[in-house]
Protein backbone atom coordinates (compact mmCIF):
# COMPACT_ATOMS: atom_id res chain seq x y z
CA UNK A 1 0.00 0.00 0.00
CA UNK A 2 1.11 3.50 -0.77
CA UNK A 3 -0.23 7.00 -0.17
CA UNK A 4 0.91 10.41 -1.30
CA UNK A 5 -0.03 14.07 -1.03
CA UNK A 6 1.16 17.26 -2.68
CA UNK A 7 0.60 20.85 -1.58
CA UNK A 8 0.98 23.74 -4.03
CA UNK A 9 2.56 26.32 -1.72
CA UNK A 10 1.31 29.33 -3.65
CA UNK A 11 -2.29 28.02 -3.34
CA UNK A 12 -1.80 27.11 0.30
CA UNK A 13 -0.43 30.54 1.14
CA UNK A 14 -3.48 32.39 -0.16
CA UNK A 15 -6.42 30.02 0.15
CA UNK A 16 -6.00 28.80 3.72
CA UNK A 17 -6.18 30.09 7.29
CA UNK A 18 -2.79 28.55 8.16
CA UNK A 19 -1.64 31.69 9.99
CA UNK A 20 -4.21 31.24 12.77
CA UNK A 21 -3.66 29.43 16.05
CA UNK A 22 -7.09 27.79 15.70
CA UNK A 23 -5.93 26.25 12.42
CA UNK A 24 -2.94 24.69 14.19
CA UNK A 25 -5.09 23.48 17.09
CA UNK A 26 -7.47 21.61 14.78
CA UNK A 27 -4.70 19.72 12.99
CA UNK A 28 -1.67 19.38 15.22
CA UNK A 29 -0.76 18.20 18.72
CA UNK A 30 1.22 20.42 21.12
CA UNK A 31 4.43 18.54 20.25
CA UNK A 32 3.80 18.94 16.52
CA UNK A 33 3.13 22.65 17.03
CA UNK A 34 6.45 22.98 18.89
CA UNK A 35 8.18 21.50 15.85
CA UNK A 36 6.25 23.80 13.48
CA UNK A 37 7.33 26.88 15.42
CA UNK A 38 10.89 25.68 16.14
CA UNK A 39 12.93 27.10 13.27
CA UNK A 40 11.22 30.10 11.65
CA UNK A 41 9.77 27.91 8.88
CA UNK A 42 6.23 27.81 10.18
CA UNK A 43 4.61 27.80 6.73
CA UNK A 44 6.75 24.98 5.28
CA UNK A 45 6.55 22.95 8.47
CA UNK A 46 2.75 23.15 8.58
CA UNK A 47 2.44 21.79 5.06
CA UNK A 48 5.12 19.18 5.57
CA UNK A 49 3.29 17.72 8.56
CA UNK A 50 -0.06 18.08 6.82
CA UNK A 51 1.15 16.18 3.72
CA UNK A 52 2.60 13.47 5.98
CA UNK A 53 -0.70 13.00 7.82
CA UNK A 54 -2.69 13.07 4.60
CA UNK A 55 -0.53 10.50 2.80
CA UNK A 56 -0.72 8.09 5.74
CA UNK A 57 -4.46 8.77 6.05
CA UNK A 58 -4.79 7.53 2.46
CA UNK A 59 -3.15 4.21 3.38
CA UNK A 60 -5.29 3.80 6.50
CA UNK A 61 -8.61 4.75 4.88
CA UNK A 62 -7.88 2.49 1.92
CA UNK A 63 -7.29 -0.33 4.37
CA UNK A 64 -10.50 -0.02 6.35
CA UNK A 65 -12.66 1.87 3.84
CA UNK A 66 -13.65 4.50 6.40
CA UNK A 67 -13.78 8.13 5.29
CA UNK A 68 -13.16 10.58 8.14
CA UNK A 69 -11.39 13.82 8.94
CA UNK A 70 -9.27 13.06 11.99
CA UNK A 71 -5.84 14.63 11.45
CA UNK A 72 -5.07 14.68 15.18
CA UNK A 73 -5.28 10.89 15.34
CA UNK A 74 -2.17 10.82 13.15
CA UNK A 75 1.02 11.58 15.06
CA UNK A 76 4.10 12.85 13.22
CA UNK A 77 7.50 11.62 14.37
CA UNK A 78 10.19 13.63 12.59
CA UNK A 79 13.56 12.01 11.91
CA UNK A 80 15.27 14.57 9.66
CA UNK A 81 14.38 17.11 6.97
CA UNK A 82 12.98 14.45 4.65
CA UNK A 83 12.30 11.25 6.60
CA UNK A 84 9.68 10.73 9.27
CA UNK A 85 7.09 8.31 10.61
CA UNK A 86 3.39 8.81 11.17
CA UNK A 87 1.62 6.75 13.81
CA UNK A 88 -2.07 5.89 13.67
CA UNK A 89 -3.31 3.67 16.50
CA UNK A 90 -0.98 0.63 16.38
CA UNK A 91 0.39 1.28 12.91
CA UNK A 92 3.54 3.30 12.21
CA UNK A 93 4.19 4.24 8.60
CA UNK A 94 7.45 5.68 7.20
CA UNK A 95 7.22 8.82 5.07
CA UNK A 96 9.55 10.67 2.72
CA UNK A 97 8.96 14.37 2.05
CA UNK A 98 10.36 16.59 -0.68
CA UNK A 99 10.35 20.32 0.07
CA UNK A 100 10.60 22.40 -3.09
CA UNK A 101 10.21 26.21 -3.25
CA UNK A 102 6.86 25.75 -5.05
CA UNK A 103 5.46 22.56 -3.53
CA UNK A 104 5.78 20.03 -0.73
CA UNK A 105 5.07 16.39 -1.41
CA UNK A 106 5.11 13.33 0.80
CA UNK A 107 4.97 9.64 0.01
CA UNK A 108 3.98 7.18 2.74
CA UNK A 109 4.88 3.56 2.12
CA UNK A 110 4.52 0.19 3.80
CA UNK A 111 7.20 -1.46 1.63
CA UNK A 112 10.49 0.18 0.56
CA UNK A 113 10.12 -0.43 -3.18
CA UNK A 114 8.27 2.43 -4.79
CA UNK A 115 8.69 5.18 -7.32
CA UNK A 116 7.15 8.64 -7.50
CA UNK A 117 7.14 11.65 -9.75
CA UNK A 118 5.92 15.23 -9.50
CA UNK A 119 4.33 16.74 -12.58
CA UNK A 120 3.55 20.33 -13.38
CA UNK A 121 -0.05 20.59 -14.51
CA UNK A 122 -0.91 22.78 -17.44
CA UNK A 123 -4.54 23.47 -16.58
CA UNK A 124 -5.74 24.50 -13.17
CA UNK A 125 -9.34 23.29 -13.34
CA UNK A 126 -10.04 20.12 -11.41
CA UNK A 127 -11.22 17.90 -14.25
CA UNK A 128 -8.26 18.51 -16.56
CA UNK A 129 -5.84 18.22 -13.61
CA UNK A 130 -7.38 14.89 -12.77
CA UNK A 131 -7.03 13.71 -16.37
CA UNK A 132 -3.42 14.94 -16.64
CA UNK A 133 -2.45 13.18 -13.40
CA UNK A 134 -3.92 9.93 -14.75
CA UNK A 135 -2.08 10.32 -18.07
CA UNK A 136 1.29 10.86 -16.39
CA UNK A 137 0.81 7.82 -14.14
CA UNK A 138 -0.24 5.66 -17.11
CA UNK A 139 2.83 6.72 -19.08
CA UNK A 140 5.20 5.92 -16.20
CA UNK A 141 3.53 2.57 -15.53
CA UNK A 142 3.66 1.56 -19.20
CA UNK A 143 7.42 2.21 -19.21
CA UNK A 144 7.85 0.32 -15.92
CA UNK A 145 6.01 -2.72 -17.26
CA UNK A 146 7.37 -2.37 -20.78
CA UNK A 147 3.94 -2.32 -22.39
CA UNK A 148 2.21 0.11 -24.71
CA UNK A 149 0.43 3.03 -23.01
CA UNK A 150 -2.86 2.22 -24.70
CA UNK A 151 -2.94 -1.15 -22.93
CA UNK A 152 -2.91 0.56 -19.52
CA UNK A 153 -5.95 1.90 -17.72
CA UNK A 154 -6.51 3.34 -14.26
CA UNK A 155 -9.87 2.50 -12.71
CA UNK A 156 -11.00 3.38 -9.20
CA UNK A 157 -12.39 0.54 -7.08
CA UNK A 158 -15.52 0.91 -4.95
CA UNK A 159 -13.53 2.57 -2.17
CA UNK A 160 -12.23 5.17 -4.62
CA UNK A 161 -8.73 3.68 -4.77
CA UNK A 162 -7.12 4.00 -8.23
CA UNK A 163 -5.80 0.71 -9.62
CA UNK A 164 -3.82 -0.24 -12.73
CA UNK A 165 -5.23 -2.54 -15.38
CA UNK A 166 -3.39 -3.99 -18.38
CA UNK A 167 -5.67 -5.19 -21.18
CA UNK A 168 -8.53 -5.27 -18.71
CA UNK A 169 -6.85 -7.30 -15.97
CA UNK A 170 -6.09 -5.88 -12.54
CA UNK A 171 -2.37 -5.46 -11.73
CA UNK A 172 -0.74 -5.96 -8.32
CA UNK A 173 1.16 -2.64 -8.10
CA UNK A 174 -0.46 -0.08 -5.80
CA UNK A 175 -0.95 3.49 -6.93
CA UNK A 176 -1.63 6.79 -5.21
CA UNK A 177 -2.44 10.04 -6.99
CA UNK A 178 -2.58 13.60 -5.72
CA UNK A 179 -2.93 17.05 -7.18
CA UNK A 180 -3.24 20.56 -5.82
CA UNK A 181 -3.02 23.86 -7.70
CA UNK A 182 -0.49 23.55 -10.48
CA UNK A 183 1.16 20.37 -9.27
CA UNK A 184 0.35 16.70 -9.34
CA UNK A 185 2.21 13.59 -8.24
CA UNK A 186 1.86 9.86 -8.49
CA UNK A 187 3.47 7.13 -6.40
CA UNK A 188 3.62 3.50 -7.50
CA UNK A 189 4.55 0.66 -5.15
CA UNK A 190 6.49 -1.78 -7.32
Amino acid at each position, binding site marked *: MIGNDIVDLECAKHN*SRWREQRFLD*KLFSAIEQDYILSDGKRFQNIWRLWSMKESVYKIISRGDGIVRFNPKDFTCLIMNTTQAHVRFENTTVPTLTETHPDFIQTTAFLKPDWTSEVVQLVHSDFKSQHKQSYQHAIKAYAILKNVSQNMVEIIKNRLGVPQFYINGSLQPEHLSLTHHGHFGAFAIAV
Partner: protein
Amino acid sequence: MKKEELIAKLKTIVQPYIQDEEAFKNLTEETTFVGDLKINSANLVDVILDVEDEFDIRIENDEMERMLSVKAAMEIVTSKIAKE
Protein backbone atom coordinates in the same frame (compact mmCIF):
# COMPACT_ATOMS: atom_id res chain seq x y z
CA MET B 1 -32.89 28.54 11.86
CA LYS B 2 -34.79 27.22 8.86
CA LYS B 3 -33.23 24.36 6.92
CA GLU B 4 -33.12 26.38 3.69
CA GLU B 5 -31.40 29.25 5.46
CA LEU B 6 -28.81 26.89 6.94
CA ILE B 7 -28.07 25.26 3.58
CA ALA B 8 -27.72 28.71 1.97
CA LYS B 9 -25.20 29.77 4.63
CA LEU B 10 -23.19 26.55 4.25
CA LYS B 11 -23.21 27.02 0.50
CA THR B 12 -21.67 30.48 0.86
CA ILE B 13 -19.02 29.08 3.22
CA VAL B 14 -17.88 26.26 0.95
CA GLN B 15 -17.95 28.25 -2.29
CA PRO B 16 -14.32 29.55 -2.16
CA TYR B 17 -13.01 25.98 -1.86
CA ILE B 18 -15.16 23.96 -4.27
CA GLN B 19 -13.68 22.57 -7.49
CA ASP B 20 -16.80 21.09 -9.06
CA GLU B 21 -19.19 23.84 -10.15
CA GLU B 22 -21.83 21.39 -11.35
CA ALA B 23 -22.02 19.62 -7.97
CA PHE B 24 -22.04 23.01 -6.24
CA LYS B 25 -24.93 24.25 -8.37
CA ASN B 26 -26.90 21.10 -7.54
CA LEU B 27 -25.92 21.04 -3.86
CA THR B 28 -28.29 19.10 -1.59
CA GLU B 29 -28.12 17.73 1.96
CA GLU B 30 -26.54 14.56 0.56
CA THR B 31 -23.65 16.41 -1.11
CA THR B 32 -20.21 15.50 0.26
CA PHE B 33 -17.38 18.03 0.56
CA VAL B 34 -14.50 15.99 -0.83
CA GLY B 35 -16.25 13.35 -2.97
CA ASP B 36 -18.78 15.63 -4.67
CA LEU B 37 -17.58 19.22 -4.36
CA LYS B 38 -13.93 18.13 -4.82
CA ILE B 39 -12.79 20.36 -1.99
CA ASN B 40 -9.07 19.73 -1.42
CA SER B 41 -8.60 17.95 1.90
CA ALA B 42 -6.14 20.70 2.89
CA ASN B 43 -9.12 23.08 2.87
CA LEU B 44 -11.44 20.97 5.06
CA VAL B 45 -10.10 22.66 8.17
CA ASP B 46 -10.80 26.07 6.61
CA VAL B 47 -14.41 25.01 6.03
CA ILE B 48 -14.64 23.97 9.70
CA LEU B 49 -13.15 27.28 10.93
CA ASP B 50 -15.45 29.27 8.65
CA VAL B 51 -18.48 27.33 9.97
CA GLU B 52 -17.37 28.04 13.55
CA ASP B 53 -17.11 31.76 12.81
CA GLU B 54 -20.35 32.04 10.86
CA PHE B 55 -22.44 30.37 13.58
CA ASP B 56 -20.31 31.43 16.54
CA ILE B 57 -19.81 27.84 17.71
CA ARG B 58 -16.85 25.58 18.52
CA ILE B 59 -16.62 22.21 16.79
CA GLU B 60 -14.89 19.43 18.73
CA ASN B 61 -12.54 16.87 17.17
CA ASP B 62 -15.07 14.03 17.26
CA GLU B 63 -17.58 16.22 15.45
CA MET B 64 -15.01 17.46 12.94
CA GLU B 65 -14.16 13.84 12.16
CA ARG B 66 -17.60 13.22 10.65
CA MET B 67 -18.26 16.69 9.20
CA LEU B 68 -17.77 15.57 5.63
CA SER B 69 -21.15 16.32 4.08
CA VAL B 70 -23.72 19.10 4.01
CA LYS B 71 -26.03 16.88 6.07
CA ALA B 72 -23.45 16.20 8.79
CA ALA B 73 -22.55 19.90 8.94
CA MET B 74 -26.25 20.79 9.32
CA GLU B 75 -26.69 18.28 12.15
CA ILE B 76 -23.65 19.53 14.03
CA VAL B 77 -24.50 23.21 13.60
CA THR B 78 -28.15 22.65 14.58
CA SER B 79 -27.25 20.73 17.75
CA LYS B 80 -24.73 23.41 18.76
CA ILE B 81 -27.09 26.32 18.19
CA ALA B 82 -29.83 24.57 20.17
CA LYS B 83 -27.52 24.29 23.19
CA GLU B 84 -26.73 28.00 23.29
